[in-house]
């Protein structure tokens, strides 16, 4: 049995938002990078990139300016991971991330000093920061309450244009709705399938023909987020050409096409930048070499195992869903290095009695505590390993679900972890 060994500068564990961002930034700085990961939250995510919108969560205070929100957050929660990062660096990381998406054909837009408001599939209005180009038109349409036609489909469950219209009745009175059968008609529709179908120009045109007579005085048309997976820009522009008005997408419940687009863009784009992927492979930590300080891992199933030997590691292994954290009846554990996990004292404190308690659940703030370089600390409070860094939702003292900072946190900490690695590496050599 051959056991190939891969030597690299940086090993990124995780292929979610944080792992992808870390691999991107590392490749951009010319670091020889290997990335491993199994299924992540990406394909579930809405595709919207939140930076910071709610603080204090208890008061449900919503920030229009995410940067001011971050200032207030750091003041009140000095352990929040954002506190370790300069705001200029966060901006820089987001710019770099968006530039990559843009160049890869999945443009995102943001109003740099403001959160933008988009609508969700249940008709709530969501403040977020970077918005996929295919969704962007809703921001202005909602703001100006433009006459708008909302489209839904027979057989696409969990998406009702009428629900959105009703929910927004006061906010956006000029909404109309129309329901269509999807051109390649099946009794039950799945978003991914629809998105692939709409990449065929004839299907897109057929659908546009059905919708066109209903546009009337609508100045914009909204559809569920199914406008293509690999060629969204093209599908959107075709649709706009046929309908003669701008269109926008509404992110749906998972499985979410905008999330799949992100996943795909990274999976195809990162190798081109030189990242060596070991995707769909499980990582097991072996040891740290006494002589070199390198961290050594075994990756993949027992019959075709790869050994990875890395100078530095970014742990972007996510939480319970991503499997970076695991819990039994008594405790929460970190799964790869068995690092200490900051957590409430007993399981009784993990979750609040009320699901929607505005303070959020304490378990959501459990995770890895780090030094200012994002190095997870051991029981004594010192970095557990000299060149092990953590990024993304595995970090403690944040509740991205309530604070609305999921992607921003993943991207900003990924960038900071890469920069820290470079700093520490150069201080060593």
């Amino acid at each position, binding site marked *: 049995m051959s056991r190939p060994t891969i030597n690299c500068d940086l090993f990124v564990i995780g292929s979610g938002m944080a792992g992808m961002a870390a691999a991107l930034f590392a490749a951009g700085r010319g670091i020889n990078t290997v990335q491993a990961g199994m299924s992540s*939250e990406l394909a*579930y*995510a*809405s595709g*919207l990139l939140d930076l910071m919108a*709610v603080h204090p969560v208890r008061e*449900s205070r*919503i920030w229009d300016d995410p940067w001011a929100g971050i200032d207030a957050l750091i003041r009140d929660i000095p352990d929040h991971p954002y506190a370790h990062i300069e705001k200029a660096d966060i901006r820089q990381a987001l710019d770099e991330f968006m530039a990559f998406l843009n160049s890869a054909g999945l443009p995102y837009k943001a109003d740099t000093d403001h959160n933008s408001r988009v609508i*969700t*599939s*249940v*008709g*709530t*209005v*969501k403040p977020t920061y970077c918005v996929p180009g295919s969704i962007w038109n809703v921001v202005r349409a909602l703001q100006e309450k433009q006459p708008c036609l909302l489209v839904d489909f027979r*057989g696409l*469950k*969990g*998406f*009702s244009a*009428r*629900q959105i219209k*009703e*929910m*927004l*009745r*006061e*906010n956006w009175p000029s909404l109309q709705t129309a329901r269509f059968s999807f051109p390649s008609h099946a*009794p*039950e529709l799945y978003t991914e399938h629809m998105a692939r179908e709409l990449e065929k120009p004839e299907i897109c045109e057929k659908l546009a023909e059905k919708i066109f007579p209903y546009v009337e005085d609508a100045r914009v048309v909204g559809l569920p987020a199914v406008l293509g997976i690999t060629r969204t820009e093209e599908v959107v522009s075709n649709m706009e050409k046929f309908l003669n008005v701008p269109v926008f997408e509404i*992110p749906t*419940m*998972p499985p979410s096409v905008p999330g799949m687009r992100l996943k795909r863009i990274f999976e195809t784009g990162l190798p081109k930048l030189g990242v060596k992927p070991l995707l769909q492979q499980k990582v097991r930590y072996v040891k740290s070499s006494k002589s070199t300080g390198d961290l050594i891992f075994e990756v993949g199933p027992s019959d075709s195992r790869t050994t990875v030997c890395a100078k530095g590691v970014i742990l972007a292994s996510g*939480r*319970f*869903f991503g499997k970076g954290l*695991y*819990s*039994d*009846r008594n405790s929460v554990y970190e799964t790869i290095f068995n690092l200490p996990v900051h957590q409430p004292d*007993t*399981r*009784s404190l*993990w*979750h609040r*009695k*009320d*699901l*929607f308690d*505005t303070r959020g*659940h304490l*378990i*959501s703030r459990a995770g890895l505590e780090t030094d200012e370089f994002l190095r997870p600390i051991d029981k004594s409070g010192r970095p557990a390993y000299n060149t092990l860094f953590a990024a993304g939702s595995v970090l403690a003292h944040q509740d*991205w*679900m*309530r604070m*609305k900072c*999921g992607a921003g946190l993943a991207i900003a900490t990924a960038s900071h972890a890469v920069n820290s690695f470079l700093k520490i590496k150069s201080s060593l050599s």
Partner: protein
Amino acid sequence: MALLKADVLIIGGGATGTGLARDLSLRGIQCVLVEKDDINAGASGRNHGLLHSGARYVSSDQEAAKECREEGELIKKLAPHCVDNTGGLFVAVEGDNENYAADFPQLCDECGIPATSLDIRDAREMEPELSEKTIAACMVEDASIDPFMLSLENMAHAQNLGSTYIRHMKVAGFKISGNRIQSVNLRNTLNRKETTVEADQVVNAAGVWSGEIAALADIKIDMVYSKGTLLITQNRITQRVVNRLRKASDADILVPGGTVSIIGTTSTHIDNPDDIYPTVREVDYIIEEGGAMLPVLRKTRYIRAYSGVRPLVRLKASGDDRDVSRGYTLIDHTENGLENFITITGGKLTTYRLMAEKTADTVCRHLGVSAPCKTRTEPFPRSEHGKWTEPGFAPREWMRKNDPTDILLCECEMVSESAVDDIIASLAHQKKRPDLCSIGLRSRVGKGPCQGTFCSLRIAAHMYDQGYLEADQGTPSLREFLRKRWRGQRPLLWDTHLVQAELQEAMHCGFLGLELESSEKGG
């Protein structure tokens, strides 16, 4: 202020109240039943679902044991579709009192309760999950019962016979003049609108809340609240009911129901019957205790926990919980100077029919009606109302119809669009606006592994499409449904359930912002 009139007003839509409505209706007396929440919102919807053979009570209360035996037999005969006649075992394990086990068959015999001692090996062959440390086993005629179907069917039958069911209506006060309740004030719990009912007779069947209702008439009933917590396993552990063969204690009964089993219960004295929820400590304790009898309980997965409160009435003025009656209590308040007010409380699910019969007898005496009780002989007609609560019914129906356009809104329990429409139609028939909780109560929606994460959103969307929800009603309806499910999930969130809960939070809060107050206003 609207005014309703009725021969008999029944307060409380649990097993007792709905059973009484059917009993009276069968005697030709029309009733109005008011319920502050919905059918089985109290103990009747939060119990173990054990149709007692009586064996559990043979050493503590022989009267209760015999009542259970008789009533259990009647229900099995008259409402077979509500019962899963599993049979039951009593088993003792190492460390349990051997004398208790040895005396048990004799005690059963004295109460006329069939019980057969088993060889340990045979018992473990019948139920392979029994502990290796089993030291005694005995077979009895326990069964499991679907309390939701039972109450929905009782009420449906009463409605067909002319009675009326009003949910989300809370009794808020009595207008008393002389020795009669003149009228009863009701408040709608959703929109707070008030209504008045004038009834000849008023029956308080409010379970643990009976003391509160009596207090509205300045009558004191000394209630004791005993909270019990139960856990539902993801898979069915045994074919039969399994009881621990020892003096009744905690976590010593496992009741199978469809594809799951239910282990419990605990017994804790509490001061307030409202706002109860299962705790992490109770859950861990039940798992450890139950594991002594069935070790698999320490490893298996659980899908939900819930708690109920037993309505017990203190008999003597003593501080001891054991001096409370586990039998039922029927009070004709003529003894307190009110001649058209009756309270029926305590008892068990198993004896609900008997409680209803005795209460109806009293009502009839007050009304001067001589019609005899029919519920002892009259089989339950099989109505449509309870059918969707049965595990396996929705998938069977869906398969049978084989209509690809009838898409599944709840994929875990395979509840389709047409099933949801059917339930909505039955609610609309009762002139009621459907909401997610009332659909959840009448079906298996939200009871599968996703715990409502996906199906709640799909059903809400469907209800908007059908015009049953409008404006921003969907958000409070969703929140309410998810909150109710959460109570039962919260103490079980470790390992895979915690993963599921995290996904739910990511969707409902991270993405949709349903936790934000402003989400209720859509902006």
